[in-house]
């Protein structure tokens, strides 16, 4: 079988500006949905390999497991389990989140772990295995006054 990579490979993580007159923009395009209605929960945008079924977040054009380039876009569940966490007192240069903050790894039902920041969380109560829910949070305003939105998780 002849194997050729398609051109979409170069579009894996576009970081372009969102066109139009939106008042909210994502910190990076293609990571999560930004629903207009507050009733609709946001979702993380992932890829599922149509050959082997493995799921990846952020989305990928080539499967890391079987190397097939046959991916479909899927949405991750809105909830996952806390795999591990730490309160970091240091932040890298350029971070829009100011320390101290809680870094966490969330085990999603689709079999992928998501690295994230926890919000609205009582540090005396949080435990590995706790149920966590995806939320969107404004982390800054851009130069035109729009809210720049990132995803975090919070205890359910």
């Amino acid at each position: 079988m002849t194997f050729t990579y398609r051109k979409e490979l170069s579009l894996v993580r576009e970081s372009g500006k969102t066109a139009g007159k939106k008042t909210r923009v994502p910190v990076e395009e293609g990571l999560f949905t930004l629903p207009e209605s507050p009733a609709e929960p946001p979702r993380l945008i992932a890829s599922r390999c149509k050959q082997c079924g493995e799921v990846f977040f952020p989305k990928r054009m080539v499967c890391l497991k079987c190397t097939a380039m046959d991916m479909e876009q899927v949405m991750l569940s809105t909830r996952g389990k806390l795999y591990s966490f730490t309160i970091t007192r240091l932040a890298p240069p350029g971070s829009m989140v100011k320390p101290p903050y809680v870094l966490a790894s969330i085990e999603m039902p689709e079999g992928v772990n998501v690295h994230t920041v926890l919000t609205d969380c009582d540090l005396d109560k949080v435990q590995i295995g706790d149920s966590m829910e995806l939320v969107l949070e404004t982390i800054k305003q851009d130069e035109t006054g729009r809210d720049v939105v990132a995803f975090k998780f919070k205890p359910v």
Partner: protein
Amino acid sequence: MREVAVIGVGLHQFGRFPDKPIEDIGREAILNALVDAGVSFKDIQAAYCGRVYPGMMAGLKVVSQFGQTGIPITNIEQACASSSTAFREAYLAIAEGRHDVVLTVGFEKMPRGLLTGMTEPGSLEEAMGLNVPPAWHAMLARRHMLDYGTTKEQIAMVAVKNHRNGLLNPYAQYRMAVTVEEVLNSRMIADPLTLYECSPTTDGASAAILCVKEKAGKYKGKPVTIAANACGTPMFQHGEDDELMMTLTERLAKQAYERAGIGPKDIDVVQLHDCFASAEIIRLEVCGFCPKGEGGRWVEEGRTDIGGEIPVNTDGGLLSRGHPIGATGLAQIAEIVWQLRGEAGPRQVPNAKVGMCQNTGLGGANVHILKV
């Protein structure tokens, strides 16, 4: 494959030298290695250079100070595993018959604070504050504590042991004894990891001269044979990524044991990549020195001390000797060479014949086994 020996090693003091150019830092380590081996630079047929932060063509700038002899000088960057990869390339170049005598060097000058440059400026990881290596290791440590009952005191004991060993190493960045209480009470970085449980940023250099074994007798340096190398990057695994490369390290250790025809029980002394105190415990386990989950207890019981069953990081490790990321891999090699020659002075492991170096970087990892 031809047998290859290390015939000379040398270091530049590990510490902070903001006013010293990288050429001077690197030159001193190379000079020490050449003198140790009794090799003239005229005999060097190729050089492999590990570094991360020093810029373009740094290898040429550092190595050619000894003469413009026209040899190939290759720059290698594999994050914290840069100079162990340089060592591997030098070893393979000789083993495969391309050269007989090769120089390998690691040199580094680091900015203070968290590692930078892992992702592009403005990336999601940077913007969301996800690029925090101590936090990654803290999360893994918390998981290890939950899964196996490892205690924060046991993790602190790694830092206590490595600082005790570093006190005996004149090249170490931090030569100070610390107690469990002092480690636990030092500044919290990412719980459970405190300042003394995190490797520092460091300037320094390390070098080794390698020679095809059949010609090693021409030189005065006492040869130490390279019994095996295993090098690689993570393989995909479902669920939690192998970002900290513990599964990779396990695979490489197994490959290295197979290639050397030995097992972990045959290793007399080992340098493990203790970038964080908890990482030494996990790497002790994945390299097969103790059963999974028992690393903390082994440290607590003194089984990894000099004089214990498997002495770990006899030179102070990354925590005390320091961690100039491009020079760490070859500093591990230098310590094992001194140990196997019986030249490690007050930190000598009695009768050490077989040693191992395990160096992990975000760009890949290496395990080397050396023997006399």
